Structure formats: structure tokens, C-alpha cells
């Protein structure tokens, strides 16, 4: 079809200038001279917010999408340089509060690797259970956001209701619904008793049962499938090229999971599979995460069945510490003595963690003598797959932007750190 551009001089809107939009003025002018126009999605966006996407549309088709992240950048890496190693634990939970255990775990593992601490088996299992609970929570949260993006309010409420059960599990285990700061170098803060673990085990079945309702009303709902199918397709090659990570990479057919490749904690002892899909479209990305929830539930059940008795805090920590209490089951009373002057040996440690949304990297650089990190580098999954997200928007309809946004589960605080 031949297109005719209207030869009417259109003034580019002045509103773009004072908004500190990171695009040149010519870009806007060019768009207005041709048949295209620019829509700013965000940052006060009804779905997620904290993120602006500058979208150039031609009719209803997105020609170009430029991300404008950083609205919730809190310079965590810099803040971390002024805090004790132990004080960074609550800080590093904050990028993604749903996923706190995984974010916590990555940091703690970096410290442990540097200090060469052997973590007791029981603590490892408890950490695995917590990490998986948080993974389910995050996937549910993302599913809920996806539902709200495509206008399904029930699809929003059901996952949040299920997440409430997870919160109940976490509050019984750790004492806080999220941001539990429960994982500490050398183990976990205190032992979790058998009753609570039993509750968690029962809760997994309840979660599974309730998710069946969710599956019928949202996941397998033809309207949902219609919205997500063949939308924002990233082929295997593209996904690798743009550095997409986590379930979104797996949705494009790449079998990559840090938990399998560089196994940590108790994942090696447990029986589970990497979930992969071939299509690489929005629905595949969603389904991969839905299936991962089932895998995670399976992991939790196995972990609770296999969990050994014993200490939860490494004895190495108490060595050379003049602490009054040296209880390997509860850190209470000795927390300050053990951790306040924690100093890492000179050098650099890096850990990879499979957070819910994908690969999470922590690098701690220590100068060997101060009790604060010299440098901490966090690379969050959100930041890694932002490029892939933007690329998958191109060529889709403006109405699909939300569906793709939701299918990626993009979480601005996590990406901005």
C-alpha cells in the first residue's frame, strides 16, 4: 500500500523539552516531519511506573523504543561502600523486595567465598527453601503485573493471594514477611523448627491447588493467550545476542540456569529440571515462569524431606571472636561481635546467582583491611534484559507494549538498583 505523508508543518511539542528526555531534539522533529509520532509511556505509568519508554509509533506500529530508566536509581553500589559488610545485607535486599532471599544469597555467598567459610548443610537447605519461596513469590508477582497490564483484575488478585501464603511461610520462618535479612555469612540467623517446615510443605500443596484456579481463569484463558501469543518474539539467536537472561532466555530455547551450571547451596542434591520453551514469544516467557513455579514447589518439598539436622551457623565464624554466646543455632547476642568487624581478605570475589528474573552477579572488591567493601558491583537481571525487551518491542502494536512489558516482568527498582 502506498503511503502519503501529510505535508502540513507540524510543530514538535514543546513539552518534550523540559522533561529531560534523553533523546535529541532532531529525533523528535524527524518523527514529526514524517508520519510518525512519539508517545511517552511513563514514568507515571498505571502498571509499574518508575520507567519511561519513549516510543515512536507509525500508526499503531512501534518503530523505535528508547528506554529511559533510572527513576529509582539509588546508587546502591556507592552506598554500600560506606557501610559495614553486614549492614549491606538489608540494603541489597531492597532492589527487589519480592526476591529478597536470592538477592541476599548472592551477596552472602560472595562474602563466604572470600572468607572461605563452610556453611552447615542445614543452613544450605534452609537457604534453598527461602530462595525458592521467593522465586515463586516473584514469579507470581510478575504474573500479577502481567495480568493487570492486560486488564485482568482477577489475574492480579489470585497470585497476590497465593503470595500471601508464601508470606505466611516466610514470616513463620524468619519473622518478617519479606526483606527478612535472614541469611548471614556462615548460615542463617536462627534455626527453623520442624513445625514451621511442615507448614511450608503443606503450603506448597495449597499453592498448587490454588494455582489451578489461576490457570483456568488466566493462564489458559483464550483472551490471555490471544494477547500474548506471537507478541514480542525473540528468537534464540536474538536472545543470546541481546544478552537476555533467566527465564526469558530459557523461553527462547536456551537451556541455561546457574543453579544447574554452577550449582550452589543444596540445588545439586535435589532433583529438578530446567524449564525451556521454543517459541520465544510473550506467552512462552510467561509459561516458562509458570512451569518454574511448579519446579520450585517440587524443590521445596524435596528440600524439606531431605533437610538434615544440625547447626545453622558455621563454627568458623566464632573462631577468634571474643563473644559471650557461641550458639550455632541462634546468632542472638553474638551478632555484633561476629560481624561488626568482618573484614574480607584482599581481593575480588564474584558470584553468580539465579535470581527469579535471571542472572544476578555480585562482585565484592576488598582492600583487605577496612571493614567496608572497597567496591561492590551488582548486575541485576532486569538491567541485563532491558535491551532484549526494547528490541522485542519493535514492530509490535502500541497496545502490545504492555503485554510485552508484563511478559518480561521488568521491575524498574531491580534494574536501576
Amino acid at each position, binding site marked *: 500500500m502506498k503511503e502519503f505523508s501529510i505535508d502540513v508543518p507540524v510543530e514538535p511539542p514543546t513539552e518534550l523539552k523540559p522533561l529531560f528526555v534523553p533523546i535529541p531534539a532532531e529525533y523528535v522533529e524527524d518523527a514529526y516531519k514524517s508520519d510518525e509520532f512519539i508517545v511517552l509511556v511513563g514514568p507515571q505509568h498505571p502498571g509499574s511506573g518508575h520507567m519511561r519508554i519513549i516510543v515512536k509509533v507509525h500508526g499503531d506500529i512501534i518503530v523505535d523504543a528508547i528506554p529511559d530508566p533510572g527513576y529509582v536509581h539509588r546508587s546502591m553500589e556507592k552506598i554500600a561502600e560506606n557501610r559495614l559488610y553486614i*549492614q549491606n545485607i*538489608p540494603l541489597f535486599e531492597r532492589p527487589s523486595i519480592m526476591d529478597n532471599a536470592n538477592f541476599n544469597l548472592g551477596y552472602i555467598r560472595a562474602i563466604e567465598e572470600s572468607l572461605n567459610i563452610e556453611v552447615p548443610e542445614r543452613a544450605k537447605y534452609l537457604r534453598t527453601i527461602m530462595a525458592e519461596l521467593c522465586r515463586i513469590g516473584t514469579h507470581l508477582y510478575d504474573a500479577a503485573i502481567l495480568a493487570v497490564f492486560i486488564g485482568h483484575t482477577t489475574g492480579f488478585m489470585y497470585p497476590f493471594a497465593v503470595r500471601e501464603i508464601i508470606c505466611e511461610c516466610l514470616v513463620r520462618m524468619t519473622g518478617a514477611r519479606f526483606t527478612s535479612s535472614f541469611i548471614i555469612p556462615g548460615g542463617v540467623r536462627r534455626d527453623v523448627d520442624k513445625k514451621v517446615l511442615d507448614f511450608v510443605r503443606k503450603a506448597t500443596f495449597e499453592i498448587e491447588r490454588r494455582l489451578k*484456579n489461576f490457570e483456568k481463569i488466566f493462564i489458559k484463558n483464550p483472551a490471555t493467550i490471544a494477547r500474548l501469543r506471537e507478541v514480542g518474539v525473540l528468537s534464540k539467536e536474538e536472545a543470546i545476542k541481546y544478552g537476555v537472561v533467566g527465564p526469558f532466555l530459557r523461553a527462547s530455547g536456551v537451556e541455561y540456569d546457574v543453579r544447574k551450571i554452577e550449582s550452589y547451596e543444596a540445588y545439586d542434591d535435589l532433583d529438578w529440571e530446567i524449564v525451556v520453551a521454543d517459541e520465544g514469544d510473550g*506467552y512462552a516467557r510467561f509459561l516458562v515462569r509458570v512451569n518454574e513455579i511448579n519446579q520450585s514447589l517440587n524443590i521445596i518439598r524435596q528440600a524439606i524431606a531431605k533437610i538434615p539436622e544440625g547447626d545453622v551457623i558455621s563454627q568458623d565464624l566464632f573462631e577468634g571472636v*571474643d563473644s559471650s554466646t557461641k550458639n550455632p543455632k541462634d546468632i542472638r*547476642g553474638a551478632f555484633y561481635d561476629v560481624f*561488626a568487624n568482618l573484614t574480607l581478605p584482599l581481593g575480588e570475589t564474584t558470584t553468580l546467582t539465579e535470581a527469579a528474573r535471571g542472572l544476578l552477579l555480585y562482585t565484592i572488591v576488598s582492600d583487605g583491611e577496612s571493614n567496608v567493601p572497597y567496591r561492590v558491583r551488582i548486575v541485576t537481571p532486569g538491567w541485563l534484559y532491558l535491551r532484549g525487551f526494547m528490541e522485542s518491542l519493535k514492530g509490535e502494536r502500541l497496545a502490545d507494549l504492555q503485554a510485552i512489558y508484563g511478559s518480561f516482568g521488568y521491575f524498574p527498582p531491580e534494574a536501576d538498583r
Partner: protein
Amino acid sequence: MKVEKVEFDALSRIIGHLNAISVGVKQAIKPERITTEYPRERRKLPDNFRGLILFEKDRCISCFRCAFICPANAIQMELYDNYYPSIDYSKCIFCHFCVDSCPTTALKQTKIHDVAFKDLDEMVVHTDEMINPPELLREDKITVEYKINGKLVLERKREVEDLIVDVIPVKRIEYHSACVNPQNCLGDALCALICPTNAITVVEEEGRRIMKIDTAKCTGCGLCVRECPTKTLGLVRREG
């Protein structure tokens, strides 16, 4: 594991629609509601719940550990007869590092998580306000507990849960400060300045300065040891 392919032909679409509608109708008739009507009902919280922090003055040894470890800088030490902590709840993130740091269990967790403050100034809870729990206006008559027996049940009991938890104090070996390297001493008397219980005293005479540690008064907080620039002081186990 490969994700199962989802059919999208006419028949499966119709089945999908019917499934969705059936769930909607089913839930509309008999919902599996998990909401609690909060101020009237209250969720039962576990004993280790990290809520408002209470303070027991007798146990406190003014060691400043809570103030030092606080990641949010919410704890300030206030001077009464000794130094005691006060918490700024506008900063507090309820990580309870302070509670875990306290060597004498002077700081205790409670299940109180819903306190209203009039303004920011009031959010700084001073020591004397921390000793007793805040005034509680409780509307709740019912305690709801999540119970899973095959299915999640919200067990509603007509009882009012006590929000204050009995904390078992941790066992602790007692210490006191001692002068281990008198030849290192500069006579700067920083220890005497920092000592929260005035256990270290300095008497100045002609040409000399006499330093004394009253071990009876000393709580073994270790502040002087941390402060001393020359490693003169050290902690010694209290005998008996």
C-alpha cells in the same frame, strides 16, 4: 523440561472460555476468600515476628552495640543515668540486627506492627517510651490463624492475642574492663570520657594522673577498649 504447547484452535478456545467462566462463576458462588478484616480481626503472628522493639533498662550495659550495627542509623544513644538507646522509627527498617546484637537481651522484639505517630518528631521513640509497650487501642476481638489441613483454612478464634513476647535471655559470660598494658597509656582519659557508667575515673595530681577502673561498676561493655588509641585496655572475664 519443555513447556507444553498450548492449543489455540476453535474447540480449545471454546473450552478455554468455558473453563474461565466456570471458575468465575464457581468463585462467585463459593469464594475461597483469604482476606481478614484487619482492625477487627488480627492475624496470628509467630513469636519471632519482627515488630516494635521494647527495651529493658536493667539489663542494658550501655555497650552501644545496637547503635553501631544499625544499618539505617535509626538508633541513637541517649544520656540518662547511663547511655540508653532510642529508636527513630522513621528510619527503622525492622531488620532487628540490634536485637540480635544485644548481648544481654535488653532489646526485645514484640508482635506490635501497627503504631500511629502524629508527626516525625514523635517517631523518635525515646528510651523511657521504649520500656513500656505503646498504648494499644485494640479493636480486634478475633484472632485469625492460617491453618492448612489439606486446604487452607482461616481459623477464627474469639480471643485476643498478646502482642508482647516473652524472650528467653541469652546466656552470657560477663566481662569487665582491665588495664592490660599500662605502659601504653597516654593518659588521655578518653576511656573515662566514654565510660557510660563512670567506672573509669581520673584523678589529677601535681605532675601525675591517676587512672582507676572500678570493676564493680564496670558492665563489660567494651566501649573503652574500642575507644583506646593505644590498646591499653582489654576485657577480662569476671571471676566467680
